[in-house]
């Protein structure tokens, strides 16, 4: 993974017959995914019916492999294989709690939605192959230009591809599966889907759109800007009314995908700030969401419930856990000194730089709305009285590691490491052009 990236652009960096590309983008997203997978395994340790099963971890490894390939895929065939490897493993993991009706329902739902969107994506990719006559995404752009297609045809492909990726990042209107799956799946898997799968999909989205459709920017910038607007707004508005913490985090993760899409829309400005901001944002989001889910798991185990009300009085029962959760929520809400602030600021800067001031405005208003429901959770933890104040929350070793890594990462990424991390992210992005 940390093998040095070869110099000299795409031609030097393609491996396995052009199937994968080893560049900084792949490297940074791979570190994100591996981190997410490692922490998922750590926080699975004490979860009943999951933590002691070998096959569970084996499937996580398969899913991780798929995600790593997604972040590096540079051929239509590899795109599809990687996507399916990831998806099928995740379908299994979501429905892993056999006998639990919610988990089974979530598994089926995820599978049906996933299969449908994969089919649309596959159709789009096959059209693309039909138009251009080749499968390597770095050759497609030239071949499409040479084929002299009408923009309408390319737009059709673009929309189909967007359906596939939109499903994976849970962008509105392809988000319907998200809350049910997040609620039903074993919680560590919810965490894993919310960060790993999303990060890998953003890697693929960035790579694919920049490589294949660079000449059609005026279309996809508008399409993605509109998609971002709806995704943020709907995600945040629906999150406001949730009572279940996992469903709230599901809608929040939809909204977070919307923010990241701002950066994707801003990529058109021909500078690397937009994509650099997306990469930075995904890294911060990975750390933050994992921290939040770690605490959800710990609380769930003690109280047996996953309602927001179950967090009541966490401050009195376990002040350090409450503080960690509070920091995670603030990071999601974009408050310094946590990484979320810098992440959002870079995204909005990128939008302003790209001339999308209105999109930045929509983004900041949404950030405000989101802060409301994050603060409601904070209020529940700090102000409300717990039902069983005396019941201590035991935190075993793996969870301590997970929390320390994520919380420290969140704070460092929001303060002294902003510079180096942004440089890394930007260099990842500059390889795309």
């Amino acid at each position, binding site marked *: 993974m940390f093998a040095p990236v070869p110099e000299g652009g795409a031609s030097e960096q393609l491996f396995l017959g052009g199937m994968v590309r080893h560049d900084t983008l792949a490297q940074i997203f791979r570190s994100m995914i591996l981190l997410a997978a490692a922490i998922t395994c750590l926080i699975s340790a004490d979860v009943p019916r999951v933590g002691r099963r070998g096959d569970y971890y084996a499937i996580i490894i398969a899913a991780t492999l798929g995600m790593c390939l997604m972040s590096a895929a540079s051929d239509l065939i590899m795109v599809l294989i990687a996507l399916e490897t990831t998806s099928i493993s995740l379908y299994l993991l979501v429905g892993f709690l056999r006998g639990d009706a919610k988990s089974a329902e979530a598994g089926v739902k995820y599978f049906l939605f996933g299969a449908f969107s994969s089919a649309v994506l596959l159709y789009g990719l096959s059209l693309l192959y039909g138009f251009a006559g080749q499968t390597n995404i770095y050759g497609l752009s030239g071949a499409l230009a040479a084929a002299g297609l009408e923009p309408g045809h390319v737009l059709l492909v673009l929309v189909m591809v967007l359906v596939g990726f939109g499903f994976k990042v849970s962008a509105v209107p392809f988000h319907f599966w998200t809350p049910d799956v997040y609620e039903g799946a074993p919680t560590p898997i919810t965490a894993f889907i919310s960060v790993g799968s999303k990060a890998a999909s953003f890697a693929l989205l960035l790579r694919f759109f920049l490589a294949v459709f660079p000449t059609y920017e005026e279309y996809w910038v508008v399409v993605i800007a509109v998609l971002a607007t709806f995704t943020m707004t709907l995600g945040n508005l629906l999150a406001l009314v949730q009572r279940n913490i996992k469903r709230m985090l599901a809608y929040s993760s939809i909204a977070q995908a919307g923010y990241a899409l701002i950066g994707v829309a801003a990529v058109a400005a021909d500078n690397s700030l937009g994509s650099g901001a997306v990469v930075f944002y995904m890294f911060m989001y990975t750390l933050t969401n994992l921290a939040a889910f770690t605490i959800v798991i710990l609380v769930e185990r003690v109280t047996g419930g996953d309602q927001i009300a179950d967090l009541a009085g966490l401050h009195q029962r376990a002040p350090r856990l409450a503080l960690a959760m509070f920091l995670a929520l603030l990071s999601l809400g*974009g408050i310094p*000194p946590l990484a979320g602030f810098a992440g959002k600021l870079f995204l909005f*800067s990128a939008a302003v730089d790209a001339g999308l001031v209105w999109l930045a405005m929509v983004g*900041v208003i949404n950030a*405000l709305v989101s802060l*409301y429901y994050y*603060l409601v959770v904070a209020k529940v933890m700090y*102000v409300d009285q717990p039902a069983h104040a005396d019941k201590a929350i035991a935190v075993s070793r793996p969870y301590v590691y997970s929390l320390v890594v994520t919380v420290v990462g969140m704070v460092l990424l929001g303060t002294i490491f902003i510079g180096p991390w*942004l440089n890394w992210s930007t260099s990842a992005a500059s390889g795309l052009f």
Partner: protein
Amino acid sequence: MIPQFPVLSLIVLIPIGAAVVIWLLPKEARTAARVTAATAMGICLLLALLMYIGYNAEVNTPESDLYALANGGYAFDSDGLPNTFRFVEQYTWVEALGIQYKLGVDGISAPMVLLTALAGFTGVLISWGIEESTREFMGFFMLLVSGVFGVFVALDLFLLFFFYEFAIFPMYILIATWGWKVTREYAAMKLTLYILVGSIIALVGVLVMYFVAGDFFVQNPDLLPEGARAYSFDFEHIQLASMHGAFNVDGYAGIDGFTLAKFWFPVIFLGFGVLAGVFPFHNWSPDGHVAAPTAVSMIHAGVLMKLGAYSALRLGVQLLPEGARIHLPWIILLTLVNVVYGAFIAFRQRDFKYVIGFSSVSHMGLVSMGFATMNLTGMTGAGLQMFSHGAMTALFFACVGMVYDRAHTRDIPSLGGMARRMPLVAVAFILGGLVSMGMPGFSGFVAELPIYLGLWHGTGVSLSLGGAAALTNYYPWIAIVGAVSIVVTAAYVMRVVHLVFFGKFDENKYHLVGDVTPIDKAALIILAVALLILGVQPLVMAPMVQSSMAPIVAALGGM
């Protein structure tokens, strides 16, 4: 070269360090938490005093740049910017975007840093009696103070926003957890959302300035200081672009006769104005102040509202003078509503704390009004008013908190004769009241007189809206209407003094009310002394504020 003693960094970082130390203490160690917090704040106060004295010494040194600025002269550094910032520390933070860790103070922020230190130190003293989760309270309080210090000393716009938002979350928790049980959740949420909505909309405006300034320097590389990046969040860098007219290019957003300054000034000024309590965005402020625990009310009304006014001045008026000239003449009408309406509302409150809450709305209106005079007299008055009102309100809220802690009610008609049991609180409150009314010999007079004088002189710049509708100078009328508030202020202060501190003391009802502790007394005395010093000897602050206001007024085209 000997590296300069990083006084500002220490002021910002010591409270954060103290918060970490406090959180590592065992839960039962209440006294240790209090002592740690008080020590940290004490060191900060000492450093802030040293910094203040150092700056003031230069203002009073006849051959220095600051002396020249304070006395009608001009002094520029090599780039042509007014040379007002001192104690500057600069380190690169995010190279790729031109973000620095850059701190410094000028004559406007130096008094604010001192004020924050005063309010922070006395706030810890006032909170000595908090028994419920003392450790967490002190920790969050330290973070809040650190964020406030940060905004006043930040010379990088990214850093400024960083601290600005950073100050908000400890406040939410402090109010929601330790506040007045009846309204705390509602008030904490309302306050947080109000403040954030203003600041993040202003943030978009700042991002626009950042990119426009960067583009400007890319097109005019000869204007760029040596070794600087074109795109930078450095305050002085953007100020330089502003000075060269980067924000006054006609045809902004494709509209003729529109410039960036004209478009974004009201957004930025009013965005920060939310925190300064500018009408009609003042609504959060009385609720927030009342719900907050005493120390937080002190910081909040005393310092945080200044944060809004200060940022509106720095990022709005100072960076977009062209926009200020167009928009401040109507914004002054909003501030007039603040001043007069706030005073009237304060008069008819039953709740002791709401009186002070609305009096803050009224007095903060004077600060914004002072900015809107756009002449040196009025703006200097506004700078002084920020300090004077800060210390005064902190004193007021401290008194209210002490009465409430003992009598367990803030209902004005049912209180009475408190001066018998807590004479010092009564004296302190009356002193604050005299400041509030603007009595000569107290800091309120020193601050408010120049504001009204400035209004009376009228604006230093011509009041025309794009040449179309030339207006007569209506500023003197505003001074006349605004002066009504002085009478109303006197009325509500005397009403409260009369009903709460004098009159009949109900022995049966309040037999448990005793005198305040020596620690409380120390806090009151510190604040009262600050108010008196400024009132008796305004020269310790006025020239300093003037030295930094002068270049702003010059950029506005006033006198």
